């Protein structure tokens, strides 16, 4: 594998609550290579968003992060002030879920894209304007010149998300973090954004950390996937292998609970018993054990280690799925 672009080790995030603090990310390790789309999958409360907010210093006030996150030879978790601001946008760009609220409603599109260009690349106004138009073209927005003068409310959700991607790429980062970028969009619009992200990463050699609960979206674009549950990574691996041969009971259960339109309509939808635990109430031992069909005695006591097997890794001593 080529040199890793981002290496996260033992990442832990704690949030303050009445009478103490709770752990929302509990010892997470993963590696993102160059020019790779790394998918972070998980349901609500799995800690997937908090783990990336920690990387760019956007955790809520009072939250603490520990561990290491190496990017370009720096430890992201130790950055402050100027160094942190330089990385945000300049090294790592971020796209959020809701394009309705992630763009500034009172500034023109041009102003919003030009700001990071001028700030991080030091390009004067005329040059920044030209680059902004190029970026809008790169994200396939029709009539970029006119779009630069327009305001967010004049665009549809899909177009706004394209603008958000353009802003995130304005300062030419090497890594793009996209947190549920298509969840709020219609399926045909989503298809456009997925293809766009794929095209952009090929054209620019970009790495993408794609966070989503939608395994279909993951399947279309991710190269490797990490599955989060209750603040821990339970499984990682290459996309096709992981989705076709899951090794962790949660991954398998999640796949079974999803509708697979490529299969006949009467293929059963198997719900997972119970609900994902709230961060304050994570079960002892393996966090998934109360909902697991394959649990053993040991599962309620010992937190399983992430075991590596070639390109795959999974945190389950049971490994009930013998590969065919």
């Amino acid at each position, binding site marked *: 594998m080529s040199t890793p672009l981002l290496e996260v080790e033992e990442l832990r995030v704690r949030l303050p609550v009445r009478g103490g603090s709770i752990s929302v990310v509990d010892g997470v390790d993963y590696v993102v290579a160059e020019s790779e789309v790394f998918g972070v999958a998980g*349901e609500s409360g799995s800690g997937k968003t908090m783990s990336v907010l920690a990387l760019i210093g956007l955790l809520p006030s009072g939250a603490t992060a520990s561990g290491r996150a190496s990017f370009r030879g720096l430890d992201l978790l130790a950055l402050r002030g100027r160094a942190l601001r330089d990385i945000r946008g300049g090294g790592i760009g971020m796209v959020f879920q809701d394009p309705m609220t992630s763009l500034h409603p009172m500034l023109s599109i041009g102003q919003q894209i030009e700001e990071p260009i001028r700030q991080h690349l030091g390009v004067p106004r005329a040059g920044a304007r030209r680059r902004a138009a190029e970026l809008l073209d790169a994200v396939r927005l029709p009539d970029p010149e006119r779009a630069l003068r327009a305001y967010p409310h004049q665009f549809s959700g899909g177009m706004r998300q394209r603008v958000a991607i353009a802003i995130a790429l304005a300062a030419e980062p090497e890594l793009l973090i996209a947190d549920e970028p298509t969840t709020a969009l219609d399926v045909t619009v989503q298809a456009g954004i997925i293809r766009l992200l794929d095209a952009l990463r090929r054209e620019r050699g970009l790495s993408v950390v794609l966070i989503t609960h939608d395994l*279909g*979206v993951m399947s279309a674009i991710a190269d490797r996937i990490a599955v989060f549950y209750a603040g821990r990574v339970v499984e990682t691996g290459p996309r*096709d292998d992981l989705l076709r041969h899951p090794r962790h009971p949660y991954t398998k259960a999640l796949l079974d609970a*999803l509708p*697979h339109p490529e299969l*006949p309509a009467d293929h059963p*939808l198997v719900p997972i018993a119970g609900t994902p635990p709230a961060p304050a109430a994570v079960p002892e031992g393996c966090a998934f054990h109360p909902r697991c069909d394959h649990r053993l005695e040991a599962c309620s006591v010992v937190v399983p280690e992430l075991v590596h097997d070639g390109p795959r890794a999974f945190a389950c001593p049971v490994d009930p799925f013998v590969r065919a």
Partner: protein
Amino acid sequence: MSVLEIDSLEVTYERRDRARFRAVAGASLAIGQGEIVGLVGESGCGKSSLARAAVGLVAPTAGTIRFEGRPVVPLTRRARSADLTRLQLVFQNPYSSLNPRRRVGDQVGDGIAVGTGRSGKTARVVELLELVGLSSNARSRYPHEFSGGQRQRIAIARALAADPSLIVLDEPLASLDASAQAQVANLLLDLSQRLSLSLLLISHDLAIVHHVADVVSVMYLGKIVESGATEALWADPQHPYTEALIGAVPHPDGTGTMPEVLPGEVPDPAMPPRGCRFHPRCPHVMDVCRTDEPPLEPIGESRLAACWLHAPEARNESSMPRAPVHPRA
């Protein structure tokens, strides 16, 4: 006789800027007993407006809605007549569709016929809660003590209290996570079978509709463009929009197949395109499509489609594919 019959329904709204537009511009639909019909479409297609008009929350501007042979009268200040309470609605957002200050049992009991004694009412509430997979002690609790999936089940129990023959569900799974979605989807299938209940399931999630519905109707910009049995429609869509929708759904199968892109954007419902509303984005557009609106017509076994590709006179015309919106799209 169909349980619910919607004929040429039109629902018009007036926007803030005084522009009037037809959210539903002439839609027809029929649902039989015990049938699950999925109504799919993207933002702005009018499916929610259709759902609200179907139960009488919004008055139609044209067309008729008949439930069990009787016209559906829009809600007035008076209490709804007993026969119309057999037509129920479940909302999308389980966090706002239950009163935060009333106990679950009280809310579920709202629909139970007046005249049932107190103990009878309690027994029925318990029965309904268990029917949707919740324990009987839920009735003394408040909505905020439950998760989204559980709240949605409470909303379904409340609708069931009126002993309905048809329930309209407006995006019932959209706010839920994967486990809850599967639970509620299975519950709906189960209830439909057990109680011979008809369902009109409005959703933008084609994958779930494919799993749950017997019949699927596809809506675009206020009109129904295709309708048919789920498997048949999925395997062989007859309308270009249906084809595009199905192609855009990503599958979690690990193959890395990219979803299909539909070029262009949904037009402003206040200014729909002339002729076929889909024509500016259609890969098979012909001259007639730009001027005349195709009617929704039967094309074979229980299939309806509104497309000139299936009209005999259109077959002889040459098809001129439109240039894509962006060269690299």
